């Protein structure tokens, strides 16, 4: 996987030199050991700033919304599914994009890694399937598999579903994954337990909206939390308002969320935002056999209907 970046750089340079794209959207090396910064590259000589490794977590499709340029975008599996979503929802035109698809075996979870060590982590070195974690007074080699973000460990679409170029050979998709294990656990709780679970989950929320803003799906010109005539949601720390934001946002993602995990990675308070969205994903799969973002030709389940759609909620 570490070889991908060479091909990504070559492709980017070619696309920019030939004028096929006005810009490349990718990542540049971060100023902290476990994160990279999304960036644009406009000049062929700057392609050397691009990086690609297991820390390229945030969904770059988020940066395509309503742009007018011709864009070369580096997209892993989940990113590519969100690009499909964006095309279906008219947030970007297919013709504008040259998609550099990147097969992915998962991104590592920097918060998980931080919590494993008492001291500050000063360097991460990636070597194929292993990650070397270094601090001032320690060095440990861990298996990448053990450090994956939860959504990555459950991923069924590691290869990009739409692309113009590939940065590497397609990888084998995972099989026999119990994708909804965590959701099932919550569903099995009784009412009181569930209430308590969600109260605890959201107790730290400061309504920074990092989750919503990191999400490629959340692009409404005025989000419902910002509507003021009339106002739908209060802006204080009232728990009901906080819950309303999270539950309602999850519903807006139903049938569209690709479980890219950007919401969880973005949250400064360590809230598992996916607890909400994963449930909606499960429901769409069970009710409509639907998985988001796999094909530009199929409209999402909530914007269309079939005569044989389940109707047992009509009593």
């Amino acid at each position, binding site marked *: 996987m570490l070889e991908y970046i060479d091909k990504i750089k070559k492709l980017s340079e070619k696309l920019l030199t030939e004028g096929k794209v006005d810009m490349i959207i990718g990542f540049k090396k*971060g*100023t*902290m050991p476990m*994160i*990279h*910064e*999304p*960036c*644009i590259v406009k000049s062929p000589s700057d392609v050397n700033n691009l990086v690609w490794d297991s820390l390229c977590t*945030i969904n770059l499709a*988020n*940066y395509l919304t309503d742009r007018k340029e011709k864009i070369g975008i580096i997209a892993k599996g989940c990113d590519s599914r969100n690009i499909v979503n964006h095309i279906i929802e008219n947030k970007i035109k297919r013709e504008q994009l040259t998609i550099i698809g990147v097969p992915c075996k998962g991104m590592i979870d920097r918060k998980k890694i*931080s*919590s494993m060590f008492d001291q*500050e982590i*000063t360097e991460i070195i990636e070597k194929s399937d292993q990650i070397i974690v270094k601090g001032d007074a320690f060095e440990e080699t861990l298996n990448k598999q053990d450090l994956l973000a939860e959504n990555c460990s459950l991923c069924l679409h590691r290869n990009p579903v739409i692309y113009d170029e590939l940065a590497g050979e397609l990888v084998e998709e995972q099989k026999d994954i119990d994708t909804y294990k965590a959701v099932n656990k919550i569903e099995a709780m009784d009412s009181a337990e569930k209430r308590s679970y969600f109260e*605890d989950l959201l*107790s*730290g929320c*400061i*309504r*920074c*909206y*990092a989750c*919503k*803003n*990191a999400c490629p799906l959340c692009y409404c010109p*005025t989000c419902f939390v*910002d509507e003021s005539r009339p106002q739908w949601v*209060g*802006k*204080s*720390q*009232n728990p009901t308002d906080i819950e309303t934001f999270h539950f309602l946002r999850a519903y807006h993602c139903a049938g569209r969320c690709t479980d890219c995990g*950007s919401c969880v*990675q*973005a*949250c*400064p*308070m*360590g809230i598992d935002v996916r607890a909400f969205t994963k449930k909606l994903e499960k429901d769409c799969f069970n009710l409509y056999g639907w998985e988001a973002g796999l094909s530009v030709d199929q409209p999402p389940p909530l914007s269309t209907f079939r005569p044989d759609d389940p109707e047992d909620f009509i009593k």
Partner: protein
Amino acid sequence: MKVIKIDKKAWAGGLEKSRSGYKLFGPVKEKNKNFGIFKELGEKQMPDLKIETRLSPKSVIYPQSEVMFEYSTDETRDDCNLMKAPEKDCSPRAIIGISPYDAAAFLILKRNFDTPEYKDPYWCNSFEASTFIGIAVNEPDSTDFSTSTKTGPFDTSGLDILLVDTGDDYLAQVVTPKGEKYLKTAGWEVEAGGDAANKIEEMKKAAEAKISSHISFENIKNKSILELYEADFWEDISFACINCGTCTYVCPTCWCFDIQDENKGNKGKRHKNWDSCMFPIFTLHTTGHNPRETKLQRVRQRFMHKLKYFMDKYNDGIMCVGCGRCVRLCPVNIDIRTVCKTMNS
């Protein structure tokens, strides 16, 4: 320099004793998380002096959401349309375990809330009732650039007491009479030996030497506002930003707020809530016009405010204490140190 020696064995007892005169606030580990938040300490609850504080202590003086007053618009009532301030507890409180630069940040906040023309009573009453007991940072991490911002891991400018953890005990440097009063209430009155002041000075130098991150803003001071405002680097700087409120909410020096009424029927409350210049509707006018409609304008505003406008207006350094929270917590790694370097070049 007056220094009191607090044997760690006497720490818990002293804290308990101080409750007779003070409400106690300090860092408390969040359930199931590896970081802490400043909260009021419950009965027998101890402040965690080693944990990373995710949000700054500004919320103790300036809560994220505060009720300014309540009202009724019911014309059958005597108190119709009268604004009633809620019962607010401004009894003396001690904020324990605050880092020296978080305390220095309160002096920056004070410039906004306590001015010759206007004093915000909500902020001022809380601030004046507080005694700040800081804990010196012996091991600053790589995102700590506090020595570049006129403060530092042992800075006493915002504190009433500076605690220095020497291993077996705390050396409590008395900075103000308020601090002295607290120590007396806690029953910590044994003065440390003659070399305590030197020991603190030594440890201060050692901590400052460990600071590996530095910024400079000399050139920003000398450049004109327009030169910085119209520079071509803002597109690159702002690209990654997702316009969430993380940086502003975790920042100890950010002060913007929004005032909102929440009504039900004919009763209501007026709230003062934290707001963020990063949010798209921050500058939305009632006409529908928004002078900072684009992400670039908002990102530029944040860094210009922090690193230029504040410095020009008050002539006292930048609006940042180098705590590093925004650097560690930005979801897309926008780093104020890099922006400062770009603006300063």
